């Protein structure tokens, strides 16, 4: 009994301090006061940081997938873009993006407060949150490079990178994760997006769609009769490496989004993440095999990513078999998306729109269907999210549909305006000669593989 009592007190302490941990003792740059207030904080900090490192490591994952799926003559350019979106994203998010996302809410629309992490934000908890939000923002930013690959000017990409990290991402992020209007929808528990199927992937994917449309297809993508032609990537090994790195990094992305190691639910999230990825790859491989009688690795890699994107929103709220189902559907969505966009004349060199844009939407919707009432709003205490199939009614589903539509429209419209305005001012597409020669030498002076005999296709 005595033991039990001590234990309850200990528990109480833990729970209490967790409750306070978010913003308690603000402006504690040293961290000593925060630790005193919450002696259990170290494991949370370790968890969040390590997961954040994994999310950052998704950057080379994207870089490798994109360059692997594009031609050797644009490989340097893709490295440049994937590097600089993270660089510009980091700086832009530091300057103001973070404030817009997580500052004091104004009208449910955006956050306000001091910029540059100044003004009372020099605090271990604040910095932890900033780090986490930053790597997520940068992930959204880097998605777009694939959709606009092999033809967008580098200078336009730098400006785009600034725009997405300064406001396109932070504003939508605020609506969902910063206390904005979507999080307060009067349906279900409000719009729910656990790790960002919508905030990160739909936003990235739909800005990418806008970019791909604004740019038009690459030279040679469509025959004169409009029939799509395949343009092969230059390295299946790098593409596969990239997909594996992303899969690995996603274990930071999803489980880390509890922002709290005391939610032991993290194990369920990890399992769901893995199973959805596997199911996505399996489905994509099988569908294309039925169509072409070939085991298409490129599409299977897209299937992995599709499964990962789709499970990102629901991962904390569903159980294993549902994760498999969500992944299987994701594999279907990505295949249909890739074929469908080609039919519409849109050229998305790496499948970014189908992977991130469409499956981000599917992921959001799936929360409204499969949420099974075992996890709350980043909380292990009631209320728990419950979808249509688990007796939760249509409320959550409606909230999800509203959020998904908002994400898609916001990102597409902002992206389209951005690219069109840039295009009107200075032209966003490289010249036809540069496109034919590849962007590496005209834009960067540096061919990616000068020691190898390469073909120019």
């Amino acid at each position: 009994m005595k033991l039990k009592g001590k234990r309850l007190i200990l528990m109480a302490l833990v729970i209490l301090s967790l409750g306070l941990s978010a913003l308690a003792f603000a402006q504690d740059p040293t961290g000593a006061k925060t630790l005193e207030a919450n002696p259990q904080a170290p494991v949370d900090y370790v968890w969040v940081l390590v997961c954040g490192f994994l999310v950052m490591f998704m950057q080379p994952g994207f870089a490798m997938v994109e360059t692997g799926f594009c031609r050797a003559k644009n490989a340097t350019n893709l490295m440049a873009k994937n590097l600089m979106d993270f660089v510009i994203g980091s700086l832009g998010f530091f300057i103001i993006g973070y404030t817009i996302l997580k500052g004091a809410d104004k009208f449910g629309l955006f956050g306000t407060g001091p910029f540059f992490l100044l003004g009372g934000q020099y605090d271990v908890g604040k910095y932890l949150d900033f780090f986490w939000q930053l790597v997520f923002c940068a992930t959204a930013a880097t998605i777009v490079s694939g959709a606009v690959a092999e033809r967008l000017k580098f200078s336009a990409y730098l400006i785009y990178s600034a725009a997405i990290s300064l406001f396109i991402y932070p504003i939508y992020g605020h609506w969902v994760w910063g206390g904005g209007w979507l999080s307060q929808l009067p349906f279900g528990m409000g719009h729910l997006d656990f790790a960002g199927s919508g905030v990160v992937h739909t936003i990235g994917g739909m800005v990418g769609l806008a970019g791909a449309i604004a740019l038009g297809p690459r030279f040679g993508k469509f025959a004169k009769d409009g029939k799509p032609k395949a343009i092969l990537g230059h390295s299946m090994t790098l593409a596969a490496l990239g997909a594996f790195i992303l899969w690995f990094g996603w274990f930071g992305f999803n489980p880390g989004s509890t922002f709290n190691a005391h939610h032991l639910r993290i194990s369920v999230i990890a399992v769901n993440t893995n199973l959805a990825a596997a199911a996505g790859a399996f489905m994509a491989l099988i569908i294309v095999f039925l169509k072409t009688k070939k085991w298409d690795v490129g599409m299977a890699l897209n299937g992995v990513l599709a499964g990962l994107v789709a499970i990102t929103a629901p991962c904390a709220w569903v159980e294993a078999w549902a994760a498999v189902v969500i992944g299987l559907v994701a594999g279907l969505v990505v295949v249909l998306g890739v074929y469908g966009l080609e039919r519409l004349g849109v050229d998305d060199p790496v499948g970014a729109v189908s992977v991130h844009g469409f499956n981000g939407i599917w992921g959001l919707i799936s929360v409204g269907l499969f949420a099974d009432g075992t996890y709350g709003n980043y909380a292990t205490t009631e209320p728990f999210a419950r979808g249509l199939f688990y007796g939760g009614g249509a409320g959550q589903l409606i909230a999800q549909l509203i959020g998904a539509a908002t994400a898609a429209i916001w990102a597409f419209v902002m992206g389209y305006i951005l690219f069109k305005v840039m295009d009107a001012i200075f032209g966003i597409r490289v010249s036809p000669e540069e496109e034919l020669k590849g962007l590496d030498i005209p834009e960067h002076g540096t061919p990616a593989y000068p020691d190898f005999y390469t073909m120019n296709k």
Partner: protein
Amino acid sequence: MKKIEAVIRVEKLEEVREALEKSGYPGIMITRIEGHGKQKGLIQQFRGREFKLELLPKIKMEIVAKDEDTEKIIDTIARTAKTGEVGDGKIFVYSVEDAIRVRTGEKGEKVI
């Protein structure tokens, strides 16, 4: 029989081949070479340091054709490979003594 050997720009390969396809040609060998002629070298850059690449990537096409078809093929290539800028390339013509089709063992002009 003649061998037509054309050096063209890398970017022109597809266009030239399609033009040949339309006007008809017996077969082709395509080699990726590096060339140097009147065209100035290409400036490249690596970690802040510029340098001139003297040898530029080019495409060499070789077609062995019947004497009577030679003219037309040369014309097609010369027309489609042209941009008017230095570096468009050259076409050389050689005479061929004999030809053998491996698949059948046949010899002479008929195998072309």
